[in-house]
């Protein structure tokens, strides 16, 4: 009996390792002023509170270290956690920063480790090749209707080939295209991209927003309702134009 169960324990697999890629927001720091960081983080979170709530976060200190700025990892981590974000990794940190993070249970992502020496090298290197622009986040394509109560977030552009129902919410860091009736809330440029635009073939939205500048349904001029329009930002004002 006991032998049986032991054998079973050996034979029936109850776990498995898999390799998987995730898309995680990366917080790239370019300055080390903790107060300013907190303030700007709060502003960002305010744009999409539900999205950021308990969101995992990767800290990227490469830019900071390029400018030879240091930051207190413990304080930074505490601040981030206070804002209901969950740091799950660090990259581009110095040996000391990385070790510090590790002590706090935050693993290092090795690809961008910079040592103190490489920092000085980078500073000396004549005209270092600009950091290869991060590959543009892929466009997220949705072919089914987005129903009331559903939320969709795209880290790049968002293309929806169906309707977006009232009570649904679609968010994108880039542009939003809706080739159907847009009746829910559409927020483009949620990370502050003021160049982002919203395109839709039938505007009936509850709310439209670009980089935090928003209009609610009541503010929409009757002439643009039920029309194919594009929405963009001009001098901090939303412009709704026929297309």
């Amino acid at each position, binding site marked *: 009996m006991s032998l049986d169960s032991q054998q079973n324990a050996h034979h029936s697999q109850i776990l498995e390792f898999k390799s998987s890629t995730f898309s995680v927001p990366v917080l790239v720091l370019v300055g080390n002023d903790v107060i300013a960081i907190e303030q700007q983080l709060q502003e960002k979170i305010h744009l999409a509170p539900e999205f950021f709530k308990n969101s995992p976060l990767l800290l990227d200190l490469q830019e900071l270290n390029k400018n030879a700025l240091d930051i207190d990892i413990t304080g930074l981590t505490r601040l981030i956690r206070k804002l209901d974000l969950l740091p799950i990794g660090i990259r581009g940190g110095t040996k000391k920063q990385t070790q510090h993070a590790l002590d706090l249970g935050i693993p290092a992502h090795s690809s961008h480790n910079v040592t103190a020496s490489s920092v000085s090298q980078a500073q000396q290197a004549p005209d270092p090749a600009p950091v290869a622009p991060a590959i543009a986040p892929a466009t997220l394509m949705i072919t089914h209707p987005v129903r*009331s109560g559903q939320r969709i977030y795209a880290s790049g552009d968002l293309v929806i080939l169906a309707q977006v129902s009232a*009570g649904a919410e679609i968010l994108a860091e880039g542009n939003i295209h809706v080739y159907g009736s847009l009746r829910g809330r559409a927020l483009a440029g949620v990370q502050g991209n003021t160049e982002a635009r919203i395109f839709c073939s039938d505007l009936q939205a509850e709310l439209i927003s670009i980089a935090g500048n928003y209009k609610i349904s009541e503010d929409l001029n009757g002439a643009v309702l039920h029309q194919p329009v594009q929405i963009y930002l001009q001098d901090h004002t939303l412009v709704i134009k026929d297309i």
Partner: protein
Amino acid sequence: MARVIVVTSGKGGVGKTTTSAAIAMGLAKKGHKTAVIDFDVGLRNLDLIMGCERRVVYDFVNVINGEATLNQALIRDKNCNLLYILPASQTRDKDALSQEGVGKILDELKKDFKYIVCDSPAGIEKGAHLAMYFADDAFIVTNPEVSSVRDSDRMLGILSSKSRRAELNEEPIKEYLLLSRYSPDRVKLGEMLSVDDVQEILSLHLLGVIPESKSVLNASNSGMPVILDEKSDAGQAYADIVARYLGEDKPHRFIDEKKGLFGMFFGGK
């Protein structure tokens, strides 16, 4: 292969139980062995509509808890011997249902039955979630008014993201729209959304329109699924719906206010 059908809506009072009883009876009458399960634990009604409330011994929760076998709890319908009813417990609440328990019962039913109709409670909480979780097909019952339509839309979102098929990345649940309590006269007066309005908002395949009808209340009171009342407009509407679901080509009726031949003869409203 057995198919699990959930009859759901989000909103209450739109006709889920009436529809569950009618289509289960319709499928059985067409020769398919069918079970209909009441998921509304604590507020059971299906037994009343099916007219078997005086024969309930064991219920759904008893079977989940292992206090009775499925065969002990299933009640054979008095009008059709291919139809069985699994009543809900009236003395418990929805927390008595568990995903494993429901899954086990459905698996057992699938061995013996062709169709399993799950009558969902209103809302989007546990009972409704479990009723739709294992579904292959969903009948979305909607009344032609905005709040019902909005709730149906929400339920459609849940079907496409929280069901077993969605979680396992299988072929999505097939969704069908049933527009109930439809009154062409009131649509004409602008008091009610039209079929086209609802279709535009939900963009869903319309399986049928059930007219507002006195026969539904009469059927409920007498414990006979309305589909057995072959003279009534609602009964005919459900018969059409079952036929369409089974792949027959039936033109839609009861959408226009002009009275059809049946309307003239029977004064259908």
